[in-house]
């Protein structure tokens, strides 16, 4: 079935911190990143809270590309990629060149797979402002030179000098898991030696407008699985994992955070924005991932939930988890309770959480949890991080289009 694939680097830019250590400690501490939206004026909206990344300075991370030539999602992605490479011991910190210590790696055998929901929405929003103001003559080449979503992956590859397979997967809010799964396949098939895989989205007026119109945004905070949950909090961020074959990681003496065991991808084929009423596709994705990894539900120590905090998602997700895990109350938590819903970045950040959980034997809580909901009868690790043996962690993500993705991480045992 091909070589074993491991995670050797983690980089993230999130509303609760930047970099692996800062993000992980914030999540274990249950810290939230919600505040009034600053990206655009929300005075005409019924809701006003978001989870934005504050004080982000791309110039601190970028070495080869000029920050002003990149859309914000690309900036977040490239920053996360740089952090991930440094975490993997592959970044020398040099300022004049790509600054990579390739450690015997051939850049032509290194690739990128990234996910996103909206690509570079702030670029099209600038165009839309021109349309609304009847100023089309002021639209310049920047619109098409910076808008297409594939640029997120392309910019990360250009920044790092990676010249292998580069793929952009815009499968909405499950996109990070799709990218990790694809990178896993590329490595297993021997089409690359190392992959950067993750997801990125920047704060988007379009996304905020849409979820506000659907009544899906909570007024203050996100409370997944709570009986009184009122919705999600849209956010922004990026996470990138360094994936490579175990053989190569061992040869270069790399620290391994986790092994990727398997994944499952399915489609509800039911509704664009609503999940299947019995959580069918979600359950099939978990089952497919378990079967592909030669695992059973009892092998799973922890589930990182999609857990958006909308009334419907959490109820259906709980049903899907029960269908797969039966009576066993596997710990299930949602970090969206702290960082909001970072869209295409969400499952990439959650993938980082799973990789850290199997290393650390700790899992982050579902914050803001007050009152259990009988319709979400889960052990959702309420409010306090938990120390527990984590042998296997399953990362679940669901998306518009009925896309479902489960990726399974396993404690690294050479």
């Amino acid at each position: 079935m091909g070589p074993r694939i491991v995670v050797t680097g983690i980089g993230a830019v999130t509303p609760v911190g930047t970099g692996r250590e800062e993000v992980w400690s914030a999540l274990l501490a249950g810290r939230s990143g919600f505040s009034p939206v600053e990206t655009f004026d929300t005075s005409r909206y019924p809701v006003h809270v978001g989870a934005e990344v504050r004080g982000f300075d791309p110039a601190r991370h970028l070495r080869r590309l000029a920050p002003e030539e990149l859309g914000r999602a690309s900036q977040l992605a490239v920053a996360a990629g740089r952090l991930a490479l440094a975490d993997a011991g592959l970044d020398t910190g040099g300022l004049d060149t790509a600054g990579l210590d390739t450690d015997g790696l051939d850049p032509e055998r290194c690739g990128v797979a990234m996910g996103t929901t909206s690509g570079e929405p702030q670029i099209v929003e600038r165009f839309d402002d021109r349309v609304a103001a009847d100023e089309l003559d002021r639209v310049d080449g920047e619109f098409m030179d910076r808008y297409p979503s594939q640029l997120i992956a392309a910019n990360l590859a250009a920044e790092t000098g990676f010249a292998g397979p580069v793929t952009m997967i815009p499968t909405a809010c499950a996109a990070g898991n799709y990218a990790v799964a694809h990178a896993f396949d590329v490595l297993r098939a021997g089409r690359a030696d190392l992959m950067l895989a993750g997801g990125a989205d920047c704060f988007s007026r379009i996304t905020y407008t849409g979820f506000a119109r659907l009544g899906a945004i909570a007024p203050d905070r996100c409370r997944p699985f709570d009986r009184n949950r009122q919705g999600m909090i849209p956010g922004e961020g990026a996470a990138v994992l360094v994936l490579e074959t175990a053989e190569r990681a061992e040869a270069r003496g790399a620290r391994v955070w986790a092994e990727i065991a398997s994944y499952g991808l399915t489609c509800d084929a039911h509704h664009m924005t609503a999940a299947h009423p019995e959580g069918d596709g979600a359950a099939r994705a978990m089952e497919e991932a378990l079967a592909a990894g030669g695992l059973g539900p009892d092998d799973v120590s922890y589930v990182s939930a999609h857990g958006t905090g909308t009334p419907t998602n959490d109820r259906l997700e709980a049903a899907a988890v029960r269908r797969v895990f039966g009576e066993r109350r596997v710990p299930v938590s949602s970090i969206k309770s702290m960082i909001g819903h970072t869209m295409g970045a969400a499952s990439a950040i959650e993938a980082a959480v799973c990789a850290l959980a199997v290393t650390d034997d700790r899992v982050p809580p579902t914050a803001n949890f007050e009152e259990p909901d009988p319709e979400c009868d889960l052990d959702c690790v309420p409010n306090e991080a938990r120390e527990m043996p984590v042998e296997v962690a399953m990362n679940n993500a669901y998306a518009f289009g009925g896309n479902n993705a489960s990726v399974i991480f396993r404690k690294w045992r050479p």
Partner: protein
Amino acid sequence: MRPAVAVTGLGVVTPLGDTPGALHEALCRGERAVAPIERFAVDGLGSTLGAEIGGFDPARYLGAGRNFRPLDRNGLLTAAAAELALADGGWDAERREGAPVGLVLGTMFGSVHTISAFDVRALQAGPNYVKPLDFANSVINAPAGQSAIWHGLRGVNTTIAGGPAAGLQALAYAADRIAAGRADAVLAGGSDELCFESFLGFARTGRAAGTSGREARPVPFDARRDGFALGEGAALLVLESVDSARRRGARTLAALAGHGAAFDPSRGRDAATAARAVERAVRAALDDAGIEPAELAFASLSADGSVDGDLAEARGVAAALGAAAAELPVAAIKSMLGEPLGAGGALQAVAAVGTFGDGRLPGVAGLEETDPELPLGGVGAATREVRRGPALLTALDFDGNARAVVLVPGEGPAG
């Protein structure tokens, strides 16, 4: 060499026809769909040329009396191509129930028209006055998601973002899923629509034909080419495991024997690294397929009239082919179909299957004076006869993504 993946069905909706046969005939006649845009005003944009699908009627493909409102134009183009491909491949609803079919779609935008119109309405009327249906279609994976709903496609559903290379990426992604035993059948290809927003956007980059101040000439490899004419369409192939095709006695039109990928970190700014990326992608694909350059019967490039891109792609292909580059017949279909972005790579594949069928390879219609720097000998305006044998498909995307796929002719009904 990996196990080949069978092509058992084709579906296309293009400006030059909505069956693979009609498309092949039009391409071999040198018919050009590139003409002044009719669907929206293009005054003052410099660029006026595009390849539109005139009078697209979803009811013709998806059934009269159905409610098409939840889908936007790209969603409908994609769902229509999916219907045609599933019917052509014999994957009816009952068969899909037994074995979930996946969909892997390359697209550059989903619909930048839908996305922009949604946002503009919120700006002008207020955020409470946008339509939830439009929000559903504002995600880039909406055409794939909508098509999955329409046809009950419960297998993998992946959208791959890209322009000229996205279709080949989708074919490669789907082929690897099948080769890994994760699916019996996957619809793979791409789609994009021609809309005002993308048309204006490309016109302002100066990469669209007619915007450089010279005479508009969106003709691949022509010495006086000045850019591409935007096109539109959807093309999907049924990719299927050889076992599954054999089990059900399906007709095999072709097989995907190998693919390769490489990236140009200069993102097209350095002609040498761009060509090098194409060269590496081609070498990887030939190696994956276990085929030598001399065994190829023809090649089909993504060249669309782009001043730098066409030459970089040709140089990369020539470098990978070595001596074979002097003679190998080469097709480039975009002087006829325009640049259909996400649909482009899949249309190259469908056109190649047409050539497998009757041996005719379309010429580059409109080619008058071949670029003297072109390192490929087999480029000409006339349609010609080629040997029945493996086809090399290549694409170089605007962002530096280079892809190659090797298709080999099928053998009629699978034994």
